[in-house]
Structures are given as C-alpha cells and as structure tokens.
C-alpha cells in the first residue's frame, strides 16, 4: 500500500461523513491513482475499454503535449460506471488529491440523483469493451484499413442519431420480454415469421441507425460497427447537457467540504490555490467550473441547500439557466455579452490593427436566452425523408436558423453515399447537395 493510498483511504470516510453532515449522499466511488499517460488516455477515449480510432490517438497526443508543456493539467477523470471510478493523477500533491476527492463526491451526488445521469445503467463501458473485442476480430479478418474506413464514415455522423421507439414495436419477433436462452430450446414453429427486419418509419432523425439497419450494401460486421457508434452517440447526448451542473456542483461541494476536512494549514492553502486556478472567471468565455459554482451557490443561498439541489437535479444546463438566471443574478455575477469590433491601437512601434472585444449593454433577459440557446446547442439534425424509386436516399437538414458548412457537408455526404451504396441527396434550405 503506497503512502498516498494509505492517507487517502483514511481521508475518504471523513469526506463521506462531511457530505452526510450536509445531507448529501453520493454513491461510493472507486478511486484509482494512475500515471499521467493513463489519465490522458482515458480522457481522450471517454470510457475505459473503448475501441480504437485515430481521432482518439490525436486527442491523446495533443493532451499529452499540452501536459508536457505544463498546461492543461488534468487532476482527475471520473467515469460514470457502477460504481463510478475516479482516476487521480499520480503526480498530484496530497492537497490536490484531497481537493479532487471532495470534488468527485459532488460528481457522485449528481450521478445518483440527476434525472439525466440515472439513464444507461452504468454498464455501457462493458458494451463498448465487448464491441472493441469484436472490432479487433474484424481488423484481423477484414483488415485494419477496411475497419477504419467504416469507423470514419460512421463517426462522422455520430451526432445524427435519435431514439426510435416505434422500431421495437414494429417487429413481432423482438417485442415482448427477451429470453437470452431461447436458442437452447427447440424452435417452436412460428405461424407468421416476419418477412424482413423492421422497417424504419420515415421520416426519421436517426440517420446512422437507419443506415445501419436499412442500407442495402453493408455487411453484418459493418452494420455492427455503425450500430455501436450510434449507441455511443446516444449515450453521450444526455451527458453533454449537464456539463455545467456537474462541474458546478462538484466545485460547490469541494468548496463546502474542504473547511470541514482534515487538511493541514499548508494543504488548505495549496488546495485554495488550485481551486482559484481552476474555477476562475474568464473575460471571453464562460468557465463551467466558475459559472456553475457561483450560479449554484446563488441558488443555495436563495432556496437552501437541499431544495436547491433537488431543483438542479431536474434540470439540464440550458433549462437551469432559462429558469433561474434572473437579471439580479446576471448582475451579481457580472456576466456580459461582448462583440468583436475592428479597431486600432497606437503603440511605441506604431499603429496596429486589433480586434476589440466590446462589452454590450444587453438586457439581462436577452443574455439569459443567448446563453441558454448556446448551452442547448445540439448537432445539426439531418432527417431521412425517403428512399426514391432509384434507391436514392433523400435527406433534409431540419430548419434551425443556420445553414450547414457546405464544404464539410459535401464531404460528410460522400461518406454517407458509401454507407448507403446509392446516390444520396441532401436538402438544406435552398441548397441541394448531391453525392453521386
């Protein structure tokens, strides 16, 4: 047992006790102290046991480079499994570890109580790990490049997924409770076997799912890859909607806990320094640690700790802002909306052209709506409208006030063309993209 493990094992019950004293009951967490490489790998893949792809390799490489340059240090990485696993950076100081443990308890509280976090059952990483094993088999059998190409095309439209409840009802074979051991028994003669797998009811926003099931050209293993990528897209979507709540509540909790916990004066100062570094306001963007913490702190002052928590646990970031960011809070937090204007400054070396970020005099309600819209931002919705007589796939980008980036849309469409096997059309307002 290492020294750090020993100290933290003694610290942990004290931290849970302090949480309980506040009336909070986070789920138990498994803490694992790991080297920097491991934490950056986990952060770039998002979940342990994830399948490989070069985009994760790229993120891993960039994060490691930042870390080696002394910037962008990741103190911890917590993963919503059951129980949750929190990875702590080995090179953290003891004060940092204690701060991070307290921080993670806030995350664990959200895991237990938030309506959006409770989905999924906490076993998705095992689904992914099983998929990673299958993918490794596909690599051996069909070649690494063939697998990568399918992954490239599927991951490009990972945002264009949706839950399709009608799908399960449409097929009599799969409706009703699933018996995993049914194949052990002699097959009963079925009166009316379904002629083909369930058809998607069009239009559908589940573009990737539609391709995975209905594409006339994909083989079984390619469908499997598309399906796994789709599941992952669906898994991540609710998690992205409560980022500020997560970080804000975790920061609130470590701030509330630290004074109660056994830290030496030196450690308290070090912990306060780290807190000030992480949760600091930014003149050009909204730091989720700072904003979430101060915003929730305001709610706690107004409603009391537990009532504020139970409200928060029902909201997404966007709805929390829309419902509770009053003009008084906007002013108290000194939030503003800024615009970039062209300007000039004179320096000893002469005039220089600059961009000036100018603070606007907006109505706080407008600012609230602006922020809520920004937080609610979802990937563009692309709807499968129909398959025409020539087997061409007709897509439409749902009206959301912004046109698609033409260059990227065309490249993405070319990938969809390969998954579909026939020409694909995409309507975006007035413009039409075609992949022959």
């Amino acid at each position: 047992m290492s020294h750090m493990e020993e100290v933290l094992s003694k610290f942990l019950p004290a931290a849970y006790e302090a949480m309980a004293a506040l009336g909070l009951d986070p789920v138990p967490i498994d803490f694992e102290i790991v080297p920097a490489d491991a934490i950056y790998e986990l952060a770039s893949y998002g979940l342990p046991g994830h399948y490989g792809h070069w985009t994760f390799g790229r993120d891993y490489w960039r994060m490691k480079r930042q870390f080696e340059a002394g910037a962008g240090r990741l103190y911890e990485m917590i993963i919503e499994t059951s129980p949750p696993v929190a990875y702590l950076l080995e090179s953290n100081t003891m004060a940092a570890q204690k701060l991070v443990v307290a921080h993670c308890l806030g995350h664990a509280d959200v895991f237990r109580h938030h309506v959006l976090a409770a989905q999924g059952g906490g076993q998705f990483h095992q689904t992914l790990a099983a998929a990673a094993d299958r993918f490794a088999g596909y690599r051996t059998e069909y070649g690494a490049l063939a697998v990568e190409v399918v992954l490239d095309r599927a991951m490009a439209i990972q945002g264009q997924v949706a839950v399709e409840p009608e799908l399960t009802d449409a097929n009599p074979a799969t409706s009703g409770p699933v018996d995993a051991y049914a194949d052990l028994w002699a097959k009963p003669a079925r009166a009316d076997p379904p002629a083909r797998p369930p058809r998607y009811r069009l239009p559908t926003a589940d573009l990737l799912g539609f391709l995975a099931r209905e594409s006339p050209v994909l083989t079984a293993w390619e469908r499997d890859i598309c399906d796994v990528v789709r599941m992952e897209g669906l898994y991540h979507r609710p998690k992205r909607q409560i980022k500020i709540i997560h970080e804000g509540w975790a920061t609130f909790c470590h701030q509330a806990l630290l004074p109660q916990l056994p830290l030496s004066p030196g450690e308290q100062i070090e912990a306060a320094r780290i807190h000030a570094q992480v949760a600091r306001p930014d003149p050009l963007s909204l730091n989720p640690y700072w904003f979430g913490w101060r915003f929730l702190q305001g709610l706690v002052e107004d409603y009391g700790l537990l009532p504020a928590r139970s409200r928060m646990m029902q909201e997404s970031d966007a709805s929390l802002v829309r419902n509770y960011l009053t003009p008084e809070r906007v002013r108290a937090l000194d939030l503003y909306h800024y615009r970039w204007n062209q300007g000039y400054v004179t320096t000893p070396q002469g005039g220089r052209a600059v961009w000036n970020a100018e603070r606007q005099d907006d109505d706080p309600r407008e600012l609230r709506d602006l922020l809520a819209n920004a937080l609610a931002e979802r990937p563009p919705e692309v709807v499968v409208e129909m398959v025409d007589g020539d087997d061409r796939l007709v897509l439409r980008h749902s009206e959301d006030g912004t046109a698609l980036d033409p260059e990227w849309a065309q490249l993405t469409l070319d990938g969809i063309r390969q998954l579909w096997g026939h020409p694909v059309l995409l309507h975006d307002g007035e413009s039409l993209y075609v992949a022959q």
Partner: protein
Amino acid sequence: MDNVGRVFHTPWDLNRKGSLDQARHAEKLKDAILRKLPEVVQELPLEGGPARVKIPLKVLDLPKFRPKPPEEPDDGIGQKPGKPGDIVARVPRGGAPGQGDGGPGDRPGEHEVEVEVDRETLIQMVLDDLKLPRLTGVSPPELTEPTDAWNSRRDHGPLSALDRRHTLKAAIMRSQIARQSLNFHPDDLKYRATREVEEPVTRATVYFLRDISGSMGDERKFLSKATAFWVTAWLRRQYPTVRLEWWVHDTEPQRLESESLFFQLGEGGGTRVAPAYYAIAEHMRLHYPPQTNNNYFFHFTDGDVFGGDPVGDAARELLPLVRWFGLVELAGLTRGALGRQLQDLSSPPFRAVRLNRREDVLAVVRALLETAGPKAEGAS
C-alpha cells in the same frame, strides 16, 4: 462507515491503445505534411539552418455536419467587473478576420497544431516520394580519402559489436577438434571491427545562375528557392561533398559570396546570357575541371534575352563541362526567347522546364532531374 468507496494504487497495466492510435494519427499527419511541404521550404535556408522544422498544420478531423462558421469573429459571453462599452480584450488583427493568431476568427474546429519534424527526415520523405534516379559521378583515380569500413574481426571489442556468426563458427571448430559437443568459451567470441580503406573521392559543385534583370517578385523568389532547395537536397544525398556556387547576371555576370544575396538581388537593366555562360565555363575550367568534378548547372530566368546574344554557342561551350544543365523558366511568358534558342541542345544533359505555380515545384524538380524521357515541358 461503509459504502464510502475505496482507493487503489496498483501498477497500471501496460496499455498500448493510446500509443497505437497515436501512431496511426501520426501516419495520417505525415501525408498532410507532404502536401504542405512546398510552402515549408520557403522558410528554410539551403545551407545550415535549424535541425528541426516546425510545420503548422490544420488539426485533422472527420468531416461532419456543422453550422456554417460565421464570417466575422463570433461574439460570446464573458465575466469581468465593469460597465457596458468596456473593451474586455484585445487581439492583433492580421488583415482579414479569420487570420488572427489564435484570437477571434479562428474558425471553430480548425485550430492549428505545430508539428516539429527533423529537417533531414523531412527531406528524406520528399526525396523518397520523388523517386529520382541515382547518379554515377566521376572520380579521379589519384584522389582518395581514408575512411573506416566495417570489414574486419577482432577477439576483443564492445558487446554490441559481437559477430554471432563467426563466434558460432569458432565455437563449432574448437569443440569439433576437441571431440566435444558444441559449447562456448570466452575465447570463441569474435567482434566486428573497422579497418581503414582508401575510398575514391567524389564531389559535386552546383552552379546556380539567376537572371536579375526582370523584377523578382516574392513569387518568383520562392519558386527559384524551392527548386534550388530540392535540387541541392537531392545532390547532397548522392555526393559526400556538395559545393554551392551562386551567380547572377543582367548584362554582366557576377559571382556572389552567399546564398542570401542570391535571392535578394533584383531589378537590373537588360539581359545578356552568353557572357554569364562563358564566365561560368571559364570558372569551371579553372577551379572544377570536369575530369575530376561533377558540375551541375541550373539557370533561373524569366526566359527573356536580347537579340543577337550568342546564347546557343555559349551553352554549347558549357555543355561538355557539366553533368547536368537545367534551365528553369519561372512564371511569365508563354515561351521565352532563351528557351527557343536553347531547345536544340542535346538532352541529357540539357533539360528545360517551366514553373508557374507553387503546387508544381516538386513535379518540376522531378521533370528537371529525370534521366530518361524527352525534353520535359514542365508540369504547369
């Protein structure tokens, strides 16, 4: 108190997934670097210069459906005490929006990364890609130079130089003579060693001649420099020593002391090429006679020449002195008078190319140096 979780600090598994995917990404980056190379070269001096080169690249990403990025830098929400109208931040603006240095207008999702590459590796990558022919240079028999060759064996030496094959051979011989089964003895160990051998010296001299009469805009300067860079890089791979000679001409030839001047001079008067060719021929005969030297000659010009200039004769005098005579016509006229006058020269060693655009630099270098094939017309 139970249900408070646990703390583990165990050795972390040897996990290579991140490194494997990182390697795959690096492979994809390499392709991107190759595409970017013609622009990178502009910054590099032909001689000396930094050992590692930084190449700015767009972050590689999968295409996806995304909203059209705004033309103007995007506004946002921030936090700081103050009042409306305050300037909360200021970043330098370089020309149009979207070219700022990490400031606003950096389009979302298109951040740049800087990749640091070894200069030699970089050159190697390009030259491998070009697949240029190998050269056989002349070397004077009397000129040799001692070098070390690994062609000998000794009984003692560093373990890294152990010669397993000969060690085994010695062990078999000894144990067979002693009528024993195969065994090893310290005396059996044999080590590779070097011995001095006399190697014939080959060396190359590259003459770069540039017409400074016309205006030499940034574009032409870049084109000539990039071509010179790759030609030199290729020759450096073929010859242990490569000397560079820098010459310019308007109506009179002039020999320069350094590379930097070569790319700076410009805006002269008229153009006479023959005197320059004669002068260089004279210089070669005096300093680098073709019997003992491999001379390469490359002329960068806008293709213009005065009437009555005996270019053809001068070039024919130069031709037997060089192993290669490259004429590079830079962006401009459809076909310069110079090219017309020289088109009858025998090829090889004469080769004329025309270079109009940056993208064509490597294709033109290939056309310029290919041994076989008809007179290249350039790749524009």
